Structure formats: C-alpha cells, structure tokens
C-alpha cells in the first residue's frame, strides 16, 4: 500500500514537474525574444522588400545578399554606377580618363562624400579597398581582382587604377560592383568573412544600416541625409527574409511587402499567371541582361564523331531542330522571345538588331542531316553516321538548376524528331560532383544546357561560356573566336567595346558555337498602390539606385 502510494505520488510529482518545465521553457523562450530596448523608429515612407536569400549574419563580404543589394547601390557604392540601361554613370568618381594604352584609369573622386560614421571618404579608402580585396581573396568583384595590378594615390581625391591587361572599358563597367569600404574600420579586421561587428555595414551609400532582428529575420535601413548624390526620396527600406517563393509572393499579394528583390534570381515565369490576376501588382517583367537558357556544344566530343565542316553543318541542323517558342512557353511562361542567332540579348551594349532570329524548321534540319549523309540506314528511327554507328549523344544539364533539367528533357525530344538519339546524361543526374567535373573541369560533354549570367554578358559577350581560353569554360578553340572574345575583354573605350561585341555577334550567328534558347523577360514583381514612379532597370527590375530618387508616395 505504502509502495503504491509512493508510485502515485511520483506520478503526480512527475506530471506537475512536466507542466512546470514546459511552462518555464515557454516563458524563457518568449522572454528571450523580447528586445531589451526599443529600436529607433524609422520614417513613414518605408519600402518593405522581400527576399528568399537569407541574410544572417550581417557580413558585407558574404556572397549574398548584402553583396546583391550593394550591387544596386545601397549601403555601399562603387566608383561608378549604372543608369536604367546599364550605361556607366559617375558615382564616387565624378569623372575619369582611360589611358591610351587601356591599362589604367584615373579617377577624380567627389569631395563631399562621407562614411555613415561621419568621416570623409578619401583616395586612401579606394586604394585600401582594392588592396584588401586582393590580400584576403574576397569573393566580390572577381573581375577586378583578376586584372587588378595596383592603385596609385595622386592626392586626397584622385586615384589611378592600374590593370595587368588593356581592359579599360570592361574594367570601368565592372567597377560598379567594386564597393569601396572604409579603411579606418576594415584595417583592424584580419578575417573579414567572419567579422560580424555592426560597423561592418558602414558605407557611404544612400542607406544606413539601422538594425537587424534575427527573430523576425528583418533588417532596417534608413535614408542617408548626407549622401553625396542627394537624399533619397524615401525614408527607409526594410528587408524581410522568406523561406519560400510561395510565402514571399503571398506576402506581396497581401500587401505585407511592397516588392521582391534578389540578384539574378528573379521570380520564375510559372508564377506570372497568379500575379497577373492580383490587383495593384505589376509583374515587373524586364528584358534579361543574361541568357536564361543556352545550348553549348562540346567540341571535343563531336569532333571525335565528325570532321569540322560536318560539325559546323550539324550545329546548324540542331539550331533548326529546336522549337524555341516551346521552350519560352514552358520555362518562361511566355515571358520571353525567340532569341537571335547572335546570342547576346538586346540589352547588351553593342547589340546588333540586324542579325536574324533563330528559326525552328524541322524540314531544314532534316535536309542538312540528309546532305551530311547522316541517314537512318537500318530504319530504327535513329540516323546513322557514315561509318554505320548511330547519331547518338547525351545532353548534360547542371543538375542543381531544375529549369535546365526540364529544358534538357524537352530538347532531347525535339532533337529526336529530327532523327537524333539525344538523351539526358543520366550519369550526372545523381552525382553533382561528376556534373561539376564534366561541365567545368573536364569540359567533356556533347551538349550542355546552361546559361549566361548578366556578368558573363557584360564581361565578354558570353565568351566565357563557349571559348576554350584563359578565363573561359568553353570548348571551342577556334582562334577567330578567341581573338574576338579578347577584343571584347580588352576594349579600351566603350565605343571600341560596342564594335567588338558586334563582331562577336556576327561570329556567333555564322558559326553557332552555342545557341541561346530563351531571351527571357525576368520578373521582379512589385506593388503599385503605395508608391509610384519606380525606375525599372534592364535585367534587375525596380530595385536600383535610380529608384531611390524617383519614387513618389501615392496619395
């Protein structure tokens, strides 16, 4: 009886203790979430932006997203900036001169620029930025690191940047993303990628870091009244992190946020239909600066199968076998256009509108293959090469990009309609390491369904994707292509660069070393009921440096 009572008492005690424990845990967790002091109130004209790139911790040198927001000019800015059509404009540098040999640029800095902590921005900060990035091998501004030689400080507000190659115009354009950092803060930091001090967000850009709330996953920035280009027309910007695209778009529809934002991770076209039906929302479809999907030929593999002249005709046949409109409809939900043979999209500097569009024409594709002697001799539905072997090859997608995998399946079907046995590269589908190795390290594929980022197009007109040369991942070793890509990279002036890009497009059109599959219009949806007069930038949508000054509150 006594023992029974003891068991019952223990049971009661256990139940009570359990309840108390749960109550204590809940209370502690809730209390821990309550900030000890209230944050400073931000202004009324606050843009709320949603993103699906997590931004914890607050570290400028992490790849995303502070690098991404600074790309559009936020807490930090570069020597130059872009206008809405990506033309280079003055920013921290009020003017510049590219040397005759194209290997150096002299910049005159604005004299009234101040860091957010009140100290002046000087030429020493500019020199420090470039040296610091090189010394610590930081992931931002890959291009200028690669070609950067040294910076000479001429006086407090004049610097000269020296490159190792004559790449004046290309370098100038890339400096938009070379955010200048304050020497007086970072010179004390030995490991920039692990630094999480709040002064790490001190820049001289139009917005000042206010606070970060890790529980709400939200960061607040207020307008910089001392910004050297003038005070922004809005008071503050809040960034909120959403775990999924669906929850972010629901928040947009519900007016919890005013806009979405991310660097070259636009809202997929499949969401367009649901957004188009919503009131007070603009889909924000803008012409892409990159190429969302492309088809890259693996020269090494195909040249083992056929000779060079056959391969050139074969590429032509492939270009006719692809149904571009089907791909635009499937991947971009119709928000795109059939690309041109010149590959680079219409937003690129030096784009040549006279180059014809790609054409889906199965009759022409079959005719070319017949002329090449690639006939279906054994009547099994697959064409045969002159030696009797089948015209069979794999198509490799980057397995981490679902749209590319889907497009690969469709393209294989389209090529099969012209009698080619094109099949998805199964070996890489379950092995990401092998996929990376095949596409980038060994470059050992027949066809790869890849893409060109805006950076690839801005850098060398997409040469990085198709040329087999230093600084590129491609497989085409044609000296003519390599020369043309070098001409684009090593342009001394913007005019020379436009001319070089035009020449490169003509080569692409003639030789088809790679084929653009979708000149997409990328979606950056935003609300139109609270703010008007957004400035829409090619490729990057409504969130950009120009928007900070053009926005107006709606009555």
């Amino acid at each position, binding site marked *: 009886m006594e023992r029974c009572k003891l068991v019952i008492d223990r*049971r009661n005690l256990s139940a009570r203790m359990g309840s108390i424990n749960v109550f204590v*845990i809940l209370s502690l967790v809730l209390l821990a979430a309550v900030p000890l002091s*209230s944050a400073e109130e931000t202004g009324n004209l606050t843009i709320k932006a949603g993103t699906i790139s*997590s931004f914890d911790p607050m570290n400028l040198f992490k*790849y*995303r997203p502070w690098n991404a927001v600074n790309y559009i000019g936020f807490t930090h800015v570069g020597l130059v900036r872009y206008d809405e059509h990506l033309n280079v404009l003055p920013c921290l540098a009020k003017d510049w001169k590219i040397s005759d040999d194209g290997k150096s640029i002299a910049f005159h800095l604005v004299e009234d620029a101040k860091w957010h902590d009140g100290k002046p921005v000087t030429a020493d900060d500019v020199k420090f930025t470039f040296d610091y990035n090189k010394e610590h091998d930081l*992931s931002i501004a890959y291009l200028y690191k690669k070609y950067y030689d040294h910076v000479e400080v001429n006086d407090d507000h004049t610097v000269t940047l020296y490159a190792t190659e004559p790449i004046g115009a290309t370098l100038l354009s890339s400096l938009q993303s070379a955010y200048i950092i304050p020497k007086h803060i970072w010179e004390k930091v030995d490991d920039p990628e692990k630094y999480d001090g709040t002064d790490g967000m001190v820049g001289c850009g139009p917005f000042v870091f206010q606070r970060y709330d890790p529980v*709400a996953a939200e960061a607040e920035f207020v307008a910089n009244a001392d910004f050297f280009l003038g005070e922004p027309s809005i008071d503050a910007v809040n960034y909120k992190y959403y775990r999924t695209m669906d929850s972010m778009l629901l928040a947009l529809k519900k007016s919890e946020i005013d806009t979405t934002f991310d660097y070259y991770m636009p809202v997929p076209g499949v969401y367009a239909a649901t957004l188009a039906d919503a009131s007070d929302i603009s889909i924000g479809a803008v012409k892409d600066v990159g190429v969302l999907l492309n088809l890259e030929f693996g020269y090494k593999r195909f040249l083992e199968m056929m000779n060079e002249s056959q391969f050139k005709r074969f590429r032509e046949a492939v270009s006719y076998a692809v149904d571009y409109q089907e791909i635009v409809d499937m991947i971009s939900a119709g928000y795109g256009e059939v690309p041109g043979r010149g590959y680079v999209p219409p937003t690129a500097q030096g784009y040549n509108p006279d180059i014809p569009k790609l054409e889906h024409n199965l009759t022409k594709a079959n005719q070319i293959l017949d002329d090449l002697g690639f006939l279906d001799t054994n009547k099994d539905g697959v064409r045969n090469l002159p030696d009797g072997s089948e015209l069979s090859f794999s198509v490799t997608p980057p397995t981490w990009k679902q749209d590319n995998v889907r497009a690969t399946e469709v393209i294989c079907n389209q090529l099969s309609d012209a009698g080619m046995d094109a099949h998805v590269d199964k070996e890489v589908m379950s092995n990401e390491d092998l996929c990376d190795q095949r596409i980038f390290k060994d470059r050992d594929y027949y066809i790869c369904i890849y893409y060109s980022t805006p950076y690839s197009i801005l850098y060398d007109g997409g040469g990085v994707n198709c040329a087999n040369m230093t600084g590129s991942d491609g497989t085409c070793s044609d000296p003519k292509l390599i020369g043309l890509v070098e001409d684009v990279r090593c342009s001394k002036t913007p005019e020379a660069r436009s001319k070089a890009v035009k020449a490169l497009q003509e080569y692409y059109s003639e030789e088809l070393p790679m084929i653009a599959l979708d000149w997409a219009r990328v979606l950056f949806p935003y609300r139109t009921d609270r703010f008007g007069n957004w400035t829409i930038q090619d490729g990057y949508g409504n969130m950009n440096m120009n928007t900070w000054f053009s926005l107006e509150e709606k009555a």
Partner: protein
Amino acid sequence: MIGALLFRKALRYIITLLIMVALVFFVSHLMPGSPLKNILGEETYFRMLSQDPQALEELNEEYGLNRPLTEQFIIYLSSLVNADLGYSYKYNQPISELILFRLKWTLLLLSPSMILGALFGICFGALAGWKHGSGLDSAVTSFLLFIYSMPHYWLAMLFVLVFAFHLDLFPLSGICSASSQGLERLWDILVHMVLPVSVLTILNISYNTLIMRGSVLQVLGEGFVLTARAKGLSERDVLFRHVLKNSLLPLVTVIALDFGFMVSGALLVEIVFSWGGMGTLVYDAVLARDYPLLHGSFLVIAVCVLAANFMADVIYAVLDPRIRVGDAA
C-alpha cells in the same frame, strides 16, 4: 534496484549516441557536392574549378576537406571532447550559438503541439476505443486517418491559404514582426505561433488517437476489466480507473519517439511558415554541405531523442512495477 536499471540504460544510450555520431559523420561526407560551392558562390566556384583548380585545392586544404575521412573524424571527436562544435561554413558563426538560437524556437513550436496532441489524442483515442464499432468511433477514426495521411507541408499550406491569406486571421509566416517591441512582441509571437502549432497539433492528435484507440481495444480484452465490471463498477469508473491508466503505457513510448520525429516532421512546417527553427537549420546545412553544422545539429537532435527515450524508460519504470521487476530479474 532502480539505480542499477538506470545505469544500464544510460550506458546503452551512450553507446547508441557514439554510434550515431560516427554514422552521421561518415554518411554526411558521402553526399555529393562540395561545401566550397556555397562558401565561394556558384559563379566563383565554377570559374575556379575551370580556370584555377589549384586555388580550389588550396581552399580544400585550408578547410581540411582533403584530409582522409578518418583523420577528419578524429579531429571532430577531439573537438567534441572539448565541447567545441566548430564553426559554420555557411553562416560564419559558432555552431553552438546557432543551434542554441534555433533550438529554442523549435521547442516553442513542439512543446505545445506535443502536449496538446497527447491530451486530445488520449481523450479521442480512449473514446473511440471505448465506443469501438459505434458511429462515433467510425467518424473519429476515419477523419483522423484522413488527416494523418495528409502530407505535413500540404496541410500547412492549406492553413496558410485559408486562415492567413483568404480569411486574414493570422500572419502568413515568420516568428514575429520586427516592428513589435516589449510585451507587444510576446503577443505577436503567440499570434504567429497559432497556425504552425495548430498544424503540428492536429497531426499529433491524429497519430496519438490511433495509437491510443488500439491500446484501449487491447486492454478491454484483459481479465482485470472483466473483474472490474464484475465488481459492479460503473462504466465511467472502469474506463477512467482501469482501462485508461493501463492503456497509457504504449503512448509514453510513442510520445518520446515523437520528439525525434517531430524535429524532422516540423522541418516542412517550418519551411512553409518561414519559422527559423532546427528543421530549417538542418535543411540549409544539407543544401550547403555545411558538414560541421550538419554534425552539430544531428548531434543535438540525437541527444534530445535519446534523452526523451531515457525519460520514457524512467517514467515506464516508475509507472509499471512489472518492468522494474522484469529488468531486475
């Protein structure tokens, strides 16, 4: 006697934990994909893979990724001995800080849903079992089986769409709003908790009810129930004083096991509600091949699951004298 029993149990759990630590370490390293891809960013990583593989090798060396796995495991074990979980590649933060921060938010979701799930599960299960074969039993069992068969994330999305988006009764996602301060924030967090806790609770209720119903049905056939009825006890007394108490034992194990399953089950619910807890931390660690974070997270989850099971063993031993006697014998 209980002391010896607990000692043997504790020893068994420690061995289990060591095996789990080793398994998690080696299995996670078998995943394809390099952590450097996340550390450097895709564009830089691929450019280096293509143009400068030597520099990539140097980075592998710097992060210790090219050392033999056994060597990496020994280093990992020695860090664990020093209570050092390491540094996250992805977040550039000490892992212990990250896990402590996230774990409390997962516990905040799990605790109420487990308690409510258990209480309602016991009630509904007992009722369905007691009235087995009746219309009530069929209705409760069929409905909860239907709920149980729903994918967690689908139910969560349904709740978001109906209660947060269309009816606008609750926030869409997140733990709280940045604008809330002080006591207002407490209320804000509670409001944000309603939907995810409801989803997890409903799923818990459905599972626990089915277990409890089965247990009650089994106990109903025992001799002591017949004896209780023969003594002339009322049906209510038979149910609450005899059947219910004896049916609870299997549920104790189930709830302890639930603790582990809930962390993984809550993952999808955390994702749908953008709830920054352990589930999403593990998910991010897998995507980023952040091995130290993955090891640390699984270690903490394993410790929690084992601790819950250990507690279940203790409660079992306290509640059921036959187990103490059986184990001692």
